[in-house]
């Protein structure tokens, strides 16, 4: 048994567009660069909280978009303070199912793609496996 020396919880910030594109490819989603609007209900009715740093006037506009096969609505990708914020209308149940709670499935794929690429550059061997709760990536040197 190898000794556990510390545990950290991380709040994800999407900073690398390439990794987001790879994540979309992994999930079978289409990343559309420079699409400036994304499909949604069209006006905010207060059925879900606004993402931090986004006003209701900014909804519907984006820098890039993500299309998901079989879904009517789309995901907007907005660049703000060197980070990318994902915007979507969770009324579309197919979209909700495809991206998971809080877009967790996209965040999972993004993290996996980013860590795999950057860790290999630093000389780590990378193992990825499915777990009951999600994905586990093990870096070894």
């Amino acid at each position, binding site marked *: 048994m190898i000794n556990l*020396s510390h545990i950290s919880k991380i709040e994800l910030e999407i900073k690398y567009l390439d990794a987001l594109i790879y994540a979309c490819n992994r999930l079978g989603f289409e990343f559309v660069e420079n699409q400036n609007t994304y499909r949604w209900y069209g006006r905010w009715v207060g059925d879900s909280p606004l993402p931090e740093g986004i006003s209701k006037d900014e909804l519907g506009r984006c820098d890039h978009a993500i299309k998901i096969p079989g879904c009517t609505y789309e995901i907007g990708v907005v660049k703000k303070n060197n980070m990318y914020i994902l915007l979507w209308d969770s009324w579309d149940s197919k979209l909700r199912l495809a991206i998971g709670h809080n877009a967790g499935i996209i965040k999972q794929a993004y993290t996996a793609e980013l860590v795999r690429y950057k*860790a290999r550059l630093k000389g780590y061997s990378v193992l990825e496996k499915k777990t009951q709760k999600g994905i586990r990536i093990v870096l070894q040197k």
Partner: protein
Amino acid sequence: MEEIIIDIDESGEISVETRGFRGKACLEESQFVKDLLGHELFRQLTPAYYITEKIKTKKYLKLCG
């Protein structure tokens, strides 16, 4: 063997664990993962964190004089 383990659950929650490191090296080695992904919300150090490398010392006995 030294390992950095990253778990990402279905809601996008990320936890990072380090195994097999001694002392502060685990924090240094895993920092690049944390910088890459965002910011650290919580950290828990375990007893293995406080284990230091064994230092070998030699003692000489005076035999005469």
